[in-house]
């Protein structure tokens, strides 16, 4: 360790011995940006990666931009800024050497943490120059490396936190401790459509170790909710005590009465746009949802895009195919349940824990408690998964309210059941696709009508829009009091499966190979696109299909296996997959998944591969088993005994991931490899069983197909 550190800028400091500390600005939840973001800084700084120490940056909007984990955009939106941070520092080190040696800046070069002057043979390490470099004025413009000269970006570097993870270090919010800290848990209504009526905490308060039982109101009526202030249950009973086990026991003897809600109107303030949101009363059930979706799909829809004359195309079609796809609600089920530390004092509100969207939550806390932001301090811990769930920061408001009322530092912990039954789910969706084929089997018309409870999943301008002359996209939605939120590749995670399974069926009806069929459509979209606003680059889309065709050896299906293909573009990254499976006595085994990705420049290939593998496992799991169903507002699944998650024995036997090599700016990997899996599974299952699967999950609690 150095004796002295010199701050060069918000992203890095250099020690007098040449060790460099690089700050990783964004929240980490397994996407491994804690390694890949600093790699970008280190690349431009031109330092030996072995001399780099990585630290999680504090949440600080004055120093960093977009400290947000979501939208697969951490790398994409920070790439330029991170390069600049490294390049600026490198420039300042060169300038310091030029000044010291009285030589022209242009003749000073760098390599692996050293500054050189070739002609005079002089050299100095970054460590010896750090002090002087810190005083150099920040240049207005700096030169960035040519991407062909990258030596860190594009090479696999190990996860900087791996050692701490495998030795069980306290990295997560749930591990956070403070002297005098108490543990808090909440009780929320057992059903959506219910609210707190009254409670009696006397028995619970008498339990050993229990400090206090009281109610809290997360958002009072009329509070202007922001984008990520979703929460179903705003009145909760809090139990505060010394240890988690004691609080869990006390929760069980808590006497609470709940009552049905009537329709609620909440006020939303979405970036200054005030609108009202009606939440219906009633106790909803999955059966009712399915009936309503069927009904809405047949009536009240909004047209989102129309090209050509779809009605006429369908009228003259030689063949029309119509299929309907559905998917259930899903719970995020992060392995680390929701939790947060709060210490509310007269001076400030101090918080620590797992959170994807601190900037939004900070604004919410400021409004809810009428505090200036300077008095709110949010420390970001590593997250035990996020998947979108931890963008919704209601649990920070709850923790702060509990600390305020208990007048103590507290850590709020959700039990697994609290976590699974408190809402913010992936919505339930429904999509009907129709295709019109002419005599020659050419696709002349496409009609998609999609909706869900409570939002539509439609992306009207995505493929195959732009590739079909006559195209109609419509959408609809059904109100619900079950709250929803972003879930790994929101909406894409359903639309991709429906669309890619449908195209497979259309290709078959047209008598074409499924990859050829897609490539022909993409060629049309590239050469002579229909309409404007087509949200994809047809050449890059085709590129991943071609790559996966080659890598999977598409024309030679292994003996006994059945394969399905799928491709999708979302969050700026293109992904195609070929999935092989075998069905033995009704039991599917995924033997292999080949995955081709175009995410531009790949920062850390092995880490990007890990993301793709995880997304594929997640997709296979949700396609086959994932579902959260309701009866009278009560979730049927409340813990992992009845919420079926994919386990190791059901994971694919092998996954190979291939990246398109290009020099496009990097895009994200967290979400894009997830949506295509659903279609690949459906298409492979069809080839294995002769049966098309339209309803997710394809297996559910059943062990066998059929």
């Amino acid at each position, binding site marked *: 360790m150095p004796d002295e550190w010199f701050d060069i800028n918000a992203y890095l400091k250099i020690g007098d011995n040449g060790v460099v500390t690089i700050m990783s600005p964004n929240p980490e*939840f*397994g*996407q*491994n940006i804690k390694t890949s973001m600093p790699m970008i800084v280190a690349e431009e700084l031109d330092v030996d990666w072995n001399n780099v120490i990585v630290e999680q940056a504090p949440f600080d909007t004055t120093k960093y931009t977009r400290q947000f984990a979501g939208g697969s955009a951490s790398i994409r939106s920070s790439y330029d800024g991170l390069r600049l941070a490294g390049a600026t520092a490198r420039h300042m080190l060169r300038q310091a050497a030029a000044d010291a040696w009285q030589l022209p800046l242009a003749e000073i070069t760098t390599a692996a943490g050293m500054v050189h002057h070739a002609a005079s043979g002089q050299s100095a390490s970054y460590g010896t120059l750090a002090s002087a470099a810190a005083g150099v004025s920040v240049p207005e413009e700096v030169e960035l490396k040519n991407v062909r000269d990258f030596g860190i970006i594009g090479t696999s570097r*190990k*996860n900087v*936190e*791996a*050692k701490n*993870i*495998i*030795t*069980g*270090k*306290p*990295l*997560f919010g*749930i*591990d956070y*401790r403070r002297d005098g800290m108490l*543990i808090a848990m909440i009780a929320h209504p057992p059903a959506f459509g219910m609210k707190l009526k009254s409670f009696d905490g006397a028995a619970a308060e008498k339990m050993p170790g229990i400090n206090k039982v009281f109610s809290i109101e997360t958002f009072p009526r009329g509070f202007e909710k922001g984008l990520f202030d979703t929460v179903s249950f705003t009145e909760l009973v809090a139990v505060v005590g010394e*240890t*988690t*086990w*004691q609080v869990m026991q006390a929760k069980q003897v808590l006497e609470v009465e709940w009552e049905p809600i009537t329709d609620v109107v909440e006020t939303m303030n979405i970036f200054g746009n005030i609108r009202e949101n009606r939440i219906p009363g009633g106790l909803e059930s999955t059966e009712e949802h399915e009936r309503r979706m069927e009904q809405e799909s047949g009536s009240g829809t909004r047209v989102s895009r129309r090209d050509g004359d779809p009605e006429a195309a369908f009228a003259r079609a030689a063949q029309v195919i119509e299929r309907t796809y559905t998917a259930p609600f899903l719970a995020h*089920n*992060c*392995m*680390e*349940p929701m939790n947060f530390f709060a210490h509310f004092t007269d001076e400030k509100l101090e918080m620590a824990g797992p959170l994807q969207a601190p900037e939004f939550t900070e604004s919410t806390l400021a409004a809810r408690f009428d505090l200036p932001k300077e008095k709110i301090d949010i420390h970001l811990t*590593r*997250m*035990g*998964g*996020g*998947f979108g769930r931890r963008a919704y920061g209601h649990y920070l408001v709850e923790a702060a309210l509990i600390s305020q009322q208990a007048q103590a530092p507290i850590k709020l*912990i959700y*039990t*697994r059941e609290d976590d699974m039954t408190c809402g913010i789910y992936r919505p339930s969706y429904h999509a009907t696709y129709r295709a019109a084929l002419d005599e020659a089997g050419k696709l002349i018309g496409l009609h998609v009508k999609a909706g869900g409870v409570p939002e539509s999943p439609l992306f009207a301008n995505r493929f195959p829009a732009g590739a079909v002359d006559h195209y109609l996209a419509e959408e609809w939605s059904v109100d619900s009091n079950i709250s929803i939120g972003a879930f790994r590749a929101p909406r894409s995670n359903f639309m991709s499966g429906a669309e890619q399974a449908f195209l497979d069926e259309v290709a078959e009806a047209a008598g074409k190979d499924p990859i050829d069929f897609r490539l022909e459509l993409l060629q049309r979209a590239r050469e002579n696109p229909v309409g404007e606003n087509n949200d994809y680059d047809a050449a890059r889309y085709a590129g991943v299909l071609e790559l996966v065709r080659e890598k999977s050896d598409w024309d030679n299906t292994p003996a006994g296996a059945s394969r399905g293909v799928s491709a999708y573009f979302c969050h700026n990254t293109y992904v195609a997959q070929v999935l092989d499976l075998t069905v033995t006595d009704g039991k599917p085994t995924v033997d292999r998944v080949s995955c081709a990705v175009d995410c531009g420049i790949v920062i850390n290939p*092995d*880490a990007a591969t*890990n*993301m793709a*593998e*995880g*997304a594929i*496992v*997640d997709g296979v*799991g949700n396609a086959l088993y994932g579902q959260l169903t309701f009866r009278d507002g009560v979730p049927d699944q409340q*813990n*992992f*005994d009845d919420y079926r*998650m994919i*386990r*190791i*024995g059901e*994971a*694919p*036997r092998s*996954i190979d991931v291939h990246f398109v090599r290009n020099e496009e700016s990097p895009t994200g990997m967290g979400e894009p490899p997830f949506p295509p899996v659903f279609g690949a599974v459906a298409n492979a299952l069809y080839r294995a069983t002769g049966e098309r699967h339209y309803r997710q999950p394809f297996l559910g609690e059943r062990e066998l197909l059929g």
Partner: protein
Amino acid sequence: MAKFTLHVNGNEQTVDVDPATPVLWVLREHLDLPGTKYGCGIGQCGACTVHVEGAAMRSCSLPVSSIGDRPITTIEGLSEHGTHPVQQAWLDHDVPQCGYCQAGQIMSASALLSHTPDPSDADIDAALQGNLCRCGTYLRIRSAVKSAARSANS
């Protein structure tokens, strides 16, 4: 409340707790060993896996009163500096994503290797079927367990 003397990671420690308290919470909150994780509390996810007399057990479902003097090993005590072959293999394969499940995975895998030094894929799947990984790192886990077996046997 009652006093229990536990043998954890080679140390003897006495706690004064409700006898029904699961070992998980005793480790996390009384013995300052937070590496063992809570995931479900009902023996379904494996995040809380520890070794009791060398066997993998779900500490969320083990009342502290049931332990007696059987030795417990947690992730913090598996090796002194993270050098157990399973931990090393986890590093070599860069297994973790979020990392939350991994202590439990490593404890299950190391228990497997202690009685099945050369496990087949089926052995690995069977031994780790109780350990959920929401991030989906199962393929790396399989490869890492096999490398750990090779390095321990060589």
